[in-house]
């Protein structure tokens, strides 16, 4: 059954994070995905990133829709509440969860089917609202769980396992996000943990909605020639723009991951993200230039990865609405009820 409990063997030698937790403490149930599925690599990177960030597991909320990708919420952070909801609606459910408690780290995991077809409207509106969350699209160009139909991100000309070519124009979540005002947009490849981990860390600390599009090949239905979401294709065409190292305020970790590069982007919480800009003049803060750059490379058939765009100046949904700093779900009833007198008084206008 998809959530087999993993035997927890703690090696005494494992490194600990600020909370005295080992990377094992960020793992979840055993994966039931196909051996070699890209999604499992994303899970591994996520486990690493969350550990490095020293987030208390119970302060994480994991949400997903339906799909192979959406199952992965079960495979990390066993100490966190998880919600494997319904197909395509996770961005809205996460919006509600976030509304109730602004203090948690929301990790949303979705697939290209879940996010770009049935859930496109919800994803877009969560982006607009700048709901603070780390939103990962495990993008494989297919519907894995329903056995290999093209998703909306399948490239024109890529062939399905049955040999049929895709003829419909793809939706690129990165371009989509940029065009509707996303404040954090990144793309990575599941097979490249070195790039992915720092991106996930930066995304987790972003002030608003952090969209991370991870090319995550489906070995069963889409890892063959002709598919631009296959390992082969992605490894060849991967063009790195910026490699991101997350530099958290705590000195211990600063020491272990030495900062290099040029652009220093302050995160909302005061921490800094460093960019190894490739090319050197790449500026992830200029939306117009970013879109232009991406389009140019896209036209050459290149998949640009890295932290592509970030704007920490935009307020998140709570800041925009000046919501209570105490999470709404934790406000005592006494502060919510106007009381009998107020009710008596306000009824004057109903006379």
């Amino acid at each position, binding site marked *: 059954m*998809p*959530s087999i409990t993993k035997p927890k063997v703690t090696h005494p030698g494992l490194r600990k994070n600020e909370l005295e937790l080992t990377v094992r403490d960020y793992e979840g149930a055993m994966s039931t995905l196909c051996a070699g599925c890209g999604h499992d690599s994303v899970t591994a990177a996520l486990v690493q990133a969350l550990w490095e960030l020293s987030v208390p597991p119970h302060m994480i909320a994991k949400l997903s829709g339906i799909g192979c990708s959406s199952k992965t919420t079960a495979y990390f952070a066993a100490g966190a509440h998880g919600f494997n909801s319904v197909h395509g609606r996770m961005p*809205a459910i996460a919006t*509600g969860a976030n*509304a*109730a408690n602004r203090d948690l780290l929301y990790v949303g995991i979705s697939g290209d089917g879940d996010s770009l077809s049935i859930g496109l409207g919800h994803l877009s509106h969560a982006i607009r609202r700048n709901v603070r969350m780390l939103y990962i699209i495990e993008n494989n160009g297919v519907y894995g769980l329903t056995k290999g139909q093209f998703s909306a991100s399948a490239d024109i000309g890529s062939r399905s396992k049955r040999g049929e070519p895709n003829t419909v124009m793809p939706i690129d979540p990165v371009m989509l996000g940029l065009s509707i005002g996303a404040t954090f947009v990144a793309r990575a490849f599941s097979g490249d943990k070195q790039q992915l981990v720092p991106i996930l860390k930066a995304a987790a600390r972003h002030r608003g909605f952090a969209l991370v599009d991870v090319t995550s090949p489906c070995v069963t239905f889409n890892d063959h020639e002709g598919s631009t979401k296959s390992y082969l294709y992605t490894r060849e065409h991967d063009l790195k723009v910026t490699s991101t190292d997350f530099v958290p305020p705590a000195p211990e970790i600063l020491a272990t991951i030495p900062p290099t590069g040029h652009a220093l982007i302050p995160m909302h919480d005061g921490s800094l993200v460093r960019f190894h800009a490739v090319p050197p003049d790449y500026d992830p803060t200029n939306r117009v230039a970013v879109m232009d750059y991406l389009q140019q490379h896209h036209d050459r058939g290149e998949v640009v990865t890295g932290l592509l765009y970030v704007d920490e100046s935009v307020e998140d949904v709570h800041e925009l609405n000046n919501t209570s700093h105490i999470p*709404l779900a934790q406000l005592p*009833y006494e*502060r919510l009820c106007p009381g009998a007198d107020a009710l*008596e008084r306000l009824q004057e206008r109903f006379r």
Partner: protein
Amino acid sequence: MVQQIATRINDCAIKLANVNGTGSASANSLLMRSVFRMGIPVSGKNLFPSNIQGLPTWYEIRINRDGHTSRALDYDLVVAMNAQTYAQDIREVREGGYVLYDSSWPLDPDLNRSDVSFLGIPLARMCNEHFRSPRERILMKNISYAGALAAALNIELDVISGVLDETYAGKEKLRASNALALQLGYDYALDHFECPLPFSLERMDATGDKILIDGNTATALGCLYAGATVAAWYPITPATSVMDNFTALCKKYRRDPESGECNYLIIQAEDELAALAIVVGASWNGARAFTSTAGPGISLMNELLGLAYYTEIPAVVVDVQRVGPSTGMPTRTQQGDILACAYASHGDTKHILLFPSNPAECFDFAVRAFDLAERFQTPVIMLSDLDIGMNDWVVPRLTWDEGYRPDRGRVLSRDDLDQVARFFRYSDDDENYVTPRTLPGVDARGAYFTRGSGHNKLGGYTEDPAQYQEVIDRLARKHGAAAAFVPEPIIEERGTRIGVVTIGSGDLAVREAVDLLDRSGVRTDLMRIRGFPFSADVQGFLERHEINYVVEQNRDGQLRSLLVLETCTPKDKLRSVLAYGGYPLSAFQVVEGIMKGLEA
């Protein structure tokens, strides 16, 4: 020849025919409020089009000293302000009644009726003389006819001017214009008509401490007092004003006095699917959250209602029903979503429903909806309707018990978790078959995985028949257990053999019908159902009566269907009396339906 009608005090029905977007609403509610302030039972029904400007709109005022204020079907007086609908409006005046019209232009002689009196008043001419701006000239015509009606019906000038003065307190210029317009109409009527008309008003003391409020405002108040902090919605008539009011109330009562921070978050969602998804997400995370919608929204929420049902997440949904199917008549009232709500979503599902009958119950039931949703960890749908939601009703003043504390149901705190060997989400059910839940952010020991896919009582994924059944069987029992917690039916019984059963906004009309039937020698007992699942009391009443007439406002007898399925009553004891044209229910429709049934 016009036949003189007998003199009547505090008993008449008036219809005002206007063009929408011309500002008649304030004049009409001014009239209604004045009657209310004179202590006389009154109702006002707004029959408006699904349009913003330029189409016919009607307002009906029923005044009845006995409190019978359901919709009247013939009118003592029609105020005909819309040339487009003159013919129809004049047709609807009862014999011996009156038509008040704008005599600035001559009335088409074809429209003449010899059996009614025409009261012409040159509203446009008068207003053009006294007011300059085109805007005022249009608006003041309305206030002028209100003035004329005040004279004709004997509404105390003090009272009606008082309401105007309050309305425009602080806006002196506006106040003055309105006062002038009112006086113009009043004086003209006194000078030209035999005032008061045979049906007129007299101060009485029937509204006492009551208030005049619409259901959507009351619902919003209920949500405020229940401690709802997250609301999500998508605009839709006739539910929109629930959220408009909730927003206004939150701005006033939920801003932290020190920090200025908002102790609420209201999200206008991208659609109804998202609205309910947001509510589900927020409730899962421990907030009291709700959405308000109408029929089309309920259809769109089906999948998420099933998710909340199966994962046992509280969710409060207010359905302000309008005429279906499909887009239907968005500005007309119906009770057509009963079945759709009771069994919403594919698979085996049953939901808790609440049926308020007026704004006072909207307030009460909104609070109870949250308590039930959290106690039973499941969606609760409150079925209001356009008549309740958007019309002003005279109801008892709302009161609040300071001792009220939200029933958050079984939520384990960190301390509670200390007491538990190991927490499993769907185990350890209580006497109502409810299992404890935990909230994210509290403790890793409470962490569990919520899934709409097959799960066992430990919360684990399952595809095993027995494990799956164990959980959904408990859900069926849990739904049944809620019968003892939903609002009990209102039963008025005298031991007759005929039961009259109704729901929601049918209440007033059915009560009046019972009275009317009494007078014609047909004695009946009354039950108004207020919640689903049905309690033993509902069953009992149905059993005790040979025949039960189920009065409801839809084509297919949906409440009857639900009673057939969910009580043990034999089907042939349940007969339908239906009215579903979209206007608020009238006692005459009920009487007619029951009489037909009895004759058959």
